[in-house]
């Protein structure tokens, strides 16, 4: 029943993507040059900077060791936020999904908190934890927790009841049902949520840095902004983009390794 559709050529797709990116950067750069020749036309670098300037800014940061330091600081906050938020989210979901009582009582609270715009809580965390690693981590945690919680909770609730009935007859205790059926089944959901959770963790960390920090990519962007340095702002954004892409690549790789039993992951 598999349809025989000719797959798109990967190399053509890659070439098109590269070409488009190059054209975009070139147009940007040329727009700025044009503005330099005629101030009423083109792109004003005061507001938009220009690719060559952005590259130069990043290179300058690199020489000072800022890039590595900022990325490490932001990564530390993000990863800590992911680990703490993810763990709390998964444990909470397993607990609330395994008891109808607990679920009925507590899930509405989580829905309530989830509807809160948590970015607005960040100043509060800074007040509580100061300009430390913890104010950033907690900011990431409150964003990650809910994404992972709801994905895991739905994943566990979504399990085919036949699978549970079967392992129960085969001799499974409640814990064994959890371990052999519910958690593996939720894993697919946890993984897809983890991809967006990474984004959220990074948002939490970076925005918290915005509010006050001594280092980190968010701090670098905020600092550049205060200096009216648009190249710095774009440079920071570029670093963030690369960072998220790398993390996503890693997660995809991990997902393929852990979900070999899924048809679409077959080689």
């Amino acid at each position, binding site marked *: 029943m598999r349809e025989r559709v000719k797959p798109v050529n990967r190399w053509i797709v890659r070439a098109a993507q590269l070409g488009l990116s190059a054209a975009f950067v070139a147009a940007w750069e040329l727009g700025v040059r044009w503005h330099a020749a005629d101030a009423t036309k083109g792109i004003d670098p005061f507001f938009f900077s220009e690719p060559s300037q952005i590259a130069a800014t990043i290179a300058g940061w690199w020489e000072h060791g800022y890039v590595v330091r900022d990325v490490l600081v932001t990564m530390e906050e993000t990863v800590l936020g992911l680990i703490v938020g993810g763990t709390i989210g998964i444990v909470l979901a397993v607990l609330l999904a395994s008891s109808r009582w607990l679920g009925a009582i507590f899930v509405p609270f989580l829905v309530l908190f989830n509807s809160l715009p948590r970015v607005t809580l960040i100043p509060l965390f800074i007040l509580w934890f100061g300009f430390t690693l913890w104010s950033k981590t907690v900011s990431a945690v409150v964003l990650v927790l809910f994404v992972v919680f709801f994905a895991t909770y739905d994943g566990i609730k979504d399990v*085919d009841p*036949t*699978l549970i*009935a*079967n*392992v*129960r*007859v*085969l*001799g*499974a*205790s409640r814990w*064994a049902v959890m371990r*052999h*059926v519910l958690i*593996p*089944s939720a*894993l697919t959901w946890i993984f897809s949520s983890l991809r967006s959770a990474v984004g959220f963790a990074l948002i939490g960390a970076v925005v918290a840095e915005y509010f006050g920090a001594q280092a980190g990519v968010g701090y670098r962007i905020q600092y550049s902004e205060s200096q009216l340095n648009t190249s710095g702002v774009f440079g920071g954004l570029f670093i963030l983009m690369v960072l998220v892409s790398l993390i996503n690549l890693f997660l995809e790789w991990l997902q393929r390794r852990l*979900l*070999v*039993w*899924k*048809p679409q992951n*077959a080689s």
Partner: protein
Amino acid sequence: MTKTFETGYTALRGVQLEIAPQRFVALVGPSGCGKSTTLALVAGLDAPSGGTVSVRGKPVDGITDSVGFLFQRDALLPWKTVRDNVMLPLQLRGVAGAQARERTADWIDRVGLRGFEGAYPYQLSGGMRKRVALAQTLVYDPEILLMDEPFSALDVQTRNLMEAEVLGLWQGSGKTVMFVTHDLEEAIALADEVVVMTAGPGRVKARYDVPLPRPRDIEQVRFDPRFTELYRAMWDDMRDEVLESYARARQAG
């Protein structure tokens, strides 16, 4: 016993049924007659709303000891390989190490799946998945086998093969089997006794002994004149129930 669900649907009303040990008993009836519910009650997966269910003289309370259950739907864990699926009940029952590995390998071999130990369920055909499920159920040697239309989703040829396989494995094993099906032919070909149930709420309408000799050839047995005779008698019983179940479904739809 009686079973009414939370939705208010009564699947079974006043069912009186006793199964002698070591017999192969088939339960037939139109869809919605509570055949599957009966099995779930015997397995302890569900509790009756009224009356009692006893296995080996003991009332069922929680999952019944030493039962195996073959489901109509796929019940293998998709994230475990054939080997891990078959070994799971042993692991859950505290059998470990070399003994568990040996019994697992033996049963994979007996259902004809040697060489597929490392495969995941999605890589197997429907018939092969049923074989894995059979091995998973028999590996811990349950005294009672409950089968809920286990082969209804398979094509006719595969189904006949699986029926023959089940008979071969059951023959002389001393296990008691309750086999639910809506297919009279399958019921007669396999069972020592066929229980016909009424359209829901299910009751026992009639019971038939199947005096066909064993071991049986699943293909040949259908040409036995006694087979045809039984089939006709049962079909007379079933027809009214099927018509009623059909009429009700039409009304509801």
